[in-house]
């Protein structure tokens, strides 16, 4: 652990630096590839919607030693036609999923199940969703998804400078695509709980982006007036400086989610807990990735196109061509010494960091 926090110090001063922004093509290519795979998966196998969306009924019979064959004979006896899925959950539960059933059919099946398994009819856990209700839930979920994304975008546009907002929005859309793709690819069930978990994680992924962008903003505030580092270098330092924080916040957020997933999937089998935490888990991972590898590089790229920033980059390049980087006579070289100094102007941060950054990969 202390090694990790020691790493935090080195990242902070820019002694250890990972070039997130310079190697952006690599990250873009990776994200692009995953998005293409997602799109293919979505196009070919599509999302596996839960009964809440398409309508249907689910029955869970708790009976140790109950068999799938018993359930199937009950289904037959009740005269239920159409596709049914019978599964064993754990050692003592049998789950039966059918298409949408009328109340009479549903009652008949419950009676048959109670008979066939010799259990009290009131111990059968039932969920039944009518087809029109399923449609309504689907509409609501879609409205929710789009409404949420629009409001979040508006907020970002107001809270950040325009280019930061664009970068954050690209990251959010990136997360949506990848998460949906993973669900299509793996074939996880999509239920209302999944959608809610997913929307929550969009919010959380923004939290991460907010933290990184706050530091970027601070580091780049006077970048043009000082003229020693480019915008990209200053932004890259910001990502590195917040790396430990991003890692810690994501890990700490992930720990409870993982425990819900573990308990939900392990002890309860299917259900709200599993759906919710699985979406959170997948979303948290892509969200953290995108705020570091997608949002900041895009922001840097957008800002570097500005004439002022282009000029700055030229100036910095010209400078580094003229001066010997390790020469200690450079006045800014004194900055790291000040790590111990009593009062350092915080604006000096980026001055020592980025200069040491790209060349000194000592680790």
């Amino acid at each position, binding site marked *: 652990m*202390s090694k990790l*926090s*020691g*790493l*935090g110090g*080195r990242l902070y001063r820019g*002694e250890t630096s990972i070039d997130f922004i310079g190697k952006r093509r690599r990250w873009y290519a990776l994200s692009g590839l995953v998005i293409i795979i997602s799109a293919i998966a979505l196009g070919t196998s599509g999302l596996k919607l839960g009964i809440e969306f398409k309508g249907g009924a689910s029955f869970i019979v708790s009976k140790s030693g109950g068999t799938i064959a018993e359930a199937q004979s009950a289904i037959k006896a009740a005269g239920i036609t159409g596709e049914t899925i019978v599964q064993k959950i754990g050692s003592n539960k049998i789950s039966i999923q059918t298409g949408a059933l*009328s*109340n*009479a059919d549903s009652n008949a099946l419950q009676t048959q199940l109670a008979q066939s398994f010799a259990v009290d009819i*009131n*111990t059968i*856990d*039932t969920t*039944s*969703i009518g087809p*029109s*209700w399923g449609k309504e*839930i689907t509409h*609501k*979920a879609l409205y929710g998804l789009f409404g*949420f994304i629009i*409001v*979040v975008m508006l*907020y970002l546009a107001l809270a950040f400078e325009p280019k930061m907002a664009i970068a954050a929005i690209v990251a959010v859309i990136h997360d949506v695509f990848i998460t949906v793709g993973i669900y299509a690819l793996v074939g996880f069930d999509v239920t*209302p*709980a999944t959608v*809610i978990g997913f*929307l*929550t994680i969009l*919010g*959380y992924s923004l939290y991460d982006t*907010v*933290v990184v962008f*706050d530091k970027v903003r*601070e580091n780049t505030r006077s970048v043009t007036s000082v003229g020693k580092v480019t915008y990209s270098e200053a932004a890259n330092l910001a990502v590195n*400086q*917040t790396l430990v*924080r991003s890692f810690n*916040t994501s890990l*700490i*957020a992930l*720990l*409870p*989610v993982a*425990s*819900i997933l573990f*308990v*939900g999937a392990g*002890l*309860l089998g299917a*259900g*709200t*807990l599993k759906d*919710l935490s699985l979406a*959170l888990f997948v979303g948290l991972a892509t969200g953290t990735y995108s705020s570091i590898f997608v949002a900041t590089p895009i922001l840097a790229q957008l800002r570097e196109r500005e004439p002022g920033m282009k000029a700055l980059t030229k100036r910095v390049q010209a400078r580094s061509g003229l001066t010997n980087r390790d020469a200690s006579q450079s006045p800014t070289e004194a900055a*790291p010494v000040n*790590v*111990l100094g009593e009062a350092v102007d*915080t604006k000096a941060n980026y001055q020592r960091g980025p200069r040491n950054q790209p060349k000194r990969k000592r680790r």
Partner: protein
Amino acid sequence: MSAINPKSAKPTGHPGRTVAILAIALVAFSALAILQGATSFKLGLDLRGGTSVTLQPRATAGGKITSAAIDQAVSIIRQRVNSLGVAESEVSAQGTGVNRQIVISVPGATGRRIVDLVGQTAELRFRQVLVEGAAAATSASTDTKTAASLPTGVTPALNAQYAALDCSNVKNRQGGGGDDPSAPLVTCNRAGTSKYILAPAEVLGSDVSKATAAIDQQGGSGWYVLLNFNGNGTSKFGAMTTRVTKLATPQNQAAIVLDGLVVSAPRINEAIVSGSAQITGNFTQTDATDLANVLKYGALPLAFDRGEVQQISPTLGADQLRAGLLAGAIGLILVVLYSLLYYRGLGLVSIGSLAVAGAITVLSFLLLGKWIGFTLTLAGIAGAIVSIGITADSFVVYFERLRDEVREGRSLRTAVETGWARARRTILVADFVSLIASILLYFFAVGSVRGFAFTLGLTTVVDLVVVFFFTKPLVSVISRIGFYAQGSTWSGFSQKSLGVSPSKISDSINGFNGKEA
């Protein structure tokens, strides 16, 4: 979003006082909770077992969906549910205007009885039988007589519809009501053994003044429902029975039609002018009682589809509650362990803050349960667990800031303030994003997952309170304690854990700037 000048960050005076005020508030609210008797959580049906039914109004030929009709339906369904006498049953309309659904939740293992009881429209009609026949569909040629020989009131179109109807198929026996009382009706009986062509209704459910379940001891016909008509109903029923007694079978039968299906179609041997009638039909006591209750409180003004039905047994409820608590405990332990391992002494602040946040959250659940009927569901518990991480994240944001400031060479006491000035902004923006997210989720969420959004929003507010009134003042206090201020090994501020090694420091001073570190 104004920039924060670190120099303007003054030490917020009296950190001890702030913590004391928070402590007093906590004690006061705890006392309030005890005084108001809010000492246990209100658990949702998914945690203690029960049945919930969501009914969607269905547009029928009979009438349009209006807001008033939905309100009326809610009160009728509430009376029906209350007739069961199960404590803490709830009936409410959710949504807005005519797009509302009626949500019924009843705790305990009442299961299917509730589902049948609340969903019935209970449109009762007395119709004269015109044609009666066996259940199966018949080919038109054998059944269709020439127009001249059809009984009065039966058109060739009705006859064709009758011929095609197969009552042995359960799909044709869904009922549901919504039939036009002033038009003839082609339908089955409930058991699916006969089919009928019925004349327009002559007596309606609204003409019934009283309905009771009774048992026929002598006749052996078992449980039946006794109906008493009001004045209007008595005269109409009297007229109907007087007229049909003179007719030949099957036209001398009066069909009792409930929600579009024939319950029974007794032959009327003599005019009934007493103003009462019996519905028989192999009822159990429960069947008869429920039917009497349904008829007593009147028909619903609308037909409803069962949108969602959930029956959770108390066993599953207990399992889910246990799983939720277990997940919470594991999550909390993991976060505490990580905080301690990574932040050492500072981790204690984080644990203390989590404890305070936990206490405030539990108090809010208890008090909100009392004040606004907040119920804790499985999704709500999940929201609370997820919020452990999000709450701890605010501490991480502050602590990392604090350590950055110390790395820059500030003394801990100064760093506490400058770091706070910057972390505060980030925490506010980030919590605001969470808050927007949870408010939106609350409004977009359907049914049980709403609880998730609610707890998430609530705990975000709790997080803000804790960070501002507990964590920050506490850090100010400990920054004056030697253990932390001098950067002891286990304080979380040691040079080693900050990544500033003493040897490197001397190197830096000598101008070697950590080259060989």
